[in-house]
Every structure is written in C-alpha cells, then in structure tokens.
C-alpha cells in the first residue's frame, strides 16, 4: 500500500511536469518547425510523444492508484 502510494505520487508529478513542459520553448519554440522527425514538424512530434506518455502514465496510474485497494477492502 505504502509503495503504491509512492508510485502514484511519482506518476502525478510526472504527469504535471510533462503537461507543463509542453508550454515551454522546449516543445513549442515559436515559429520553429525544425528539427523534423520523419518529415514531421518539431512541435508535432514532440507533443505527440508527450500525449502518448500521458496515456501510458494513466495506465500506470490504474495499476498503482491506492484507491483500488481501498475499494477491495470495502468489499471484503
């Protein structure tokens, strides 16, 4: 339970950091479309990776969310 809470907190921090990084010049340098990846403009491929990472974090969140255990305890 304790470890789950720790992993859950880590997932939350990662989600917040990823979301905030998106609005910095690291992902959206104004008026810059290079370097491209496979012909895809910079801001698009970086933000695509962030979107996928957020969904993966959500999946991890379902595994480590401490609330799941609480619900199981409630049932028993």
């Amino acid at each position, binding site marked *: 339970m304790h470890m789950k809470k720790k992993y859950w907190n880590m*997932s*939350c921090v990662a*989600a917040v950091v*990823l*979301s905030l990084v*998106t*609005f*910095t010049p690291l*992902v*959206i*340098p*104004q*008026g*810059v*479309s290079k370097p*491209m990846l*496979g*012909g*895809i*403009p*910079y*801001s*698009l491929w970086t*933000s*695509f990776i*962030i*979107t*996928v*990472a*957020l*969904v993966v*974090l*959500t*999946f991890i*969140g*379902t595994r480590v*969310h401490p*609330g*799941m255990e609480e*619900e199981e305890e409630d049932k028993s």
Partner: protein
Amino acid sequence: MIFWVWVFGLIYAGLLVMASLKSYKKGRSAEEFMMAGSNVGLSLGVLTFAAALFSTFTFLGMPDFFRVNGVGAWIFLAVSDGAMVFFLLWFGYQIRMKVKGMEFRGVSGLIGRCYGNKWAGYVFFLAAFLFLIPYVGIQIQGIAIFMEAAFPGSLPSWGWSLGIVLIMLIYAEIGGLKAIIFSDAIQGLLLLVVIWIIGWACLSHFGGIAPMFERVGNIQEELLSTPGPQGLLTPQFLFASLIAILMIPVTQPQFTTRIVVMKSMKTMQLMAVSLGAFAILVILPTIFIGMYGVDMYQEYGRDEFFANAFLYDQPNFVAALAIIGLIAAGLSTTNAQIFALGSELRGLLKGNENSIMTKTKIGIFVFSVIAFFFSIIVIDQLVLLARVSFAGTGIMGPMILLGILSNRKISSAIIYLSFVGLVIFLLSLADIIPDMYFGIRLDLLLFLVLGVIAIISHLTGKEHQLIREDDVKH
C-alpha cells in the same frame, strides 16, 4: 450517393430503434431513466464518454482548426486530452468516493449538499446552462450546414435543425440515459471508422506524411509551428485551454454523470486509459484532413471546405457514411448535453418524484427548443465556441473541487465569487470589458484567482463537514 445515404441511414436508424427498445422498460424508476441504473461497463463507458467528448467539434471543427492554425492544434486538443485522462483517474476516484452510499442527482444537487447551500447548485446550473446551450446550438447548426451541402435545395437549414432536435427529443424521452449511452456507442465506433477512412484518403492524396508536411510548408510555413499563421496558438492560449479541458470531467455535467454511473472503480479507471488511446486515434486523422484542406481549399470558407473535403472529393459510399457519421456524432453529443441539463435541473428540484420527473422532462424540452433557436442565430468557429464552453463551465471548477475534496466546514464565499467570475467572463465575451489584464488572458486569470481562493477557503475551514440532505438550506 443518395442510395448509400439510404442504406447507411436505415442501418443507423435501425440500430437506434433497437437501442431505445432495449432501454425502454415500463414502470422504470427515475434512477433507471436518468442514471442508467448506474451500471455501465467498460466498452460502453469508453464509447459513451468518447462520443460525448468527440462530436461535431472533432469531426468538422478539428480539421478546420488544423487547416487554419496548423500543427499546434494537436497540443490544443490531444495533449490536453492526454492530461485530462490522467486527471480523470484522480477526480473519478474522488467523486465516486464522495457519492458512495448516496443517490447522485447531478453535480448541482451534489454541490448544494457539499456546501449546505442551495446557491452553489444554482450558480453551477446557471453556468452549465449558459455555456452548454450555445455549444449544443452550434453543433446542430454544423449538421444542418452539412446536410444542406449534401442535399441542396431540399430543406432550409432551420428545417434540418428542427428535424435533429425532434429526433433527439423523441429518442431521449423513450430510452433515457441508457438509450443515449447505446447510441453513443454506435456513434463512437462510426466516428472512428469514418474519420479514418476520410483521413486516410486525404493522406493518400499527398503520398505519405513527410510529403504532406513538405507540401504544406511550401504553401505556408507558419502552419508547421506555433503560434500558427493567425498567431492564436500562443503558450498562454494553449495553457488556458489545457486548464479548461482538464475541468471537463468536473464541470461539464454529461461527463461527471458518466463517471458516476460506471459499474465500478476499476471499470472507471480502465475507461480513462482507453479514452486516452481513443483520443489519439480520433484526433490523428483530423491532421490529415486539415492539411488536405490547406493544399486544396486554403482560400475557401469553412462551409465550402467541409462540403468538398467530406463529400464531393470522396467516393459516394464514403460521403454517405460521412453524412450518417456526422448526424450520429452531433445527435449523441447534443443529446448527452441536453439530457445532462435535465439531470442537473432534477438535482435542484424538491418534492414528489413523479412531479420532479415531469418537470425534468419539460425542462429537457425547453432546453432543446432554446438550443434550436441558438442553432439558427449563432455564428462562430466550432472549435473556438467549444473552447468558450469548456472555459465558461471551467470557472466553476475550483468551487466544485473544493466542495468535493474538502472535509471541513467551508465558507460560502467561493460560491458568490464564482458567480462574480461567471459574470466577469460573460462581460468579456460581450466585449464590454477587456479579455486581457496585465498581459494575462481573463479566463486564465479567473481560474488562478478562484483556485487560490478555493485553497484559502479550505485552509481556513474549521470543523469536519457532515453531508446530509437536511443540511441544505431552503
């Protein structure tokens, strides 16, 4: 094309009839009618949430948004949705724990109980009404424009709008929330299939992703970066949009209801993950359609772009599928929104259950009529109006989160300040006051100020709060 419209139209209508018959039960309780028995499984849950979220706004609005503002539109919606599904995981748990053991009668009812003050419910209902109705209206209008392009001269635009509103009313009346959820499932799948067929055709036009962006860059290089040719997608605009979209599960009642009616916590959590994957899958092809629009119809208006890209440039059966897909997309979302307003109204009413249900049904009818009139008069970009809708209801976010999360006796000040925030936002929309202060957008400023007030209210709150029906002041 007419032949294929009939074929797909009949299949769709047949599925709707089946869904409403399956949902219809004589002598069903108000809880079954309004909350689908609070027993929605994973597949239905994902599709109903996705269908309520991705509507005409995604189907037509996002390709147009990519066409006009370029690749930054991905951050506007997809990154925000990615963050929203993670937030959904956290908020879904909180609200489900809060409503455990009590009957959920919409956010207005819940928030009134949390604060022990009926004005909290009224203020939220007012925000939901003011910002959902125009959004419903513009979606109905989107379908009407599309239908007019598909069948020129057969019916005036308002005739199509009226037809859509009537179908929506009859359907909701027969089947209740369960029928809406079934129709959402049909629409969710249809939307995914149709958007990919059209998106793939648009991508094939360029011969691949790299040639597509190369061509677009040659036409207008600003489309390949932010803030885009119109200068709209600034970091501040995108960040304020993220907050508005994050607040969707909290402040747009059709989504909050769907979180609560999921069968279990586990199902709700898996729904959040699946929704994130669904979002990526649905938004991706809208880039291809938007870039196709840049190449072929950059100088054209919105309506001409829709008609050409979705109808005239497609094989007949794809164009017919697009028409039915769009009707399904608009119908299920508007249905969900109008029905959610009905649920919110029900949460505010007191008295005999039969009389409450009658008033709720009358309310749904009145909301539909108002939305119909809006569909005739409102003129705006789909995506921007949707964003205003998310931001407008989002202003209520701090108040709702505070009510749900805090276990202390909280001051009612946040209720009245949220109302003031709502009025200020409305004044800025009407251009009576500016929408920027100290270089910060007003919506972002309101989120921040109300957020800080919510935190202070919690920290200064004293006793533990007991939530009982009788606590609500009358």
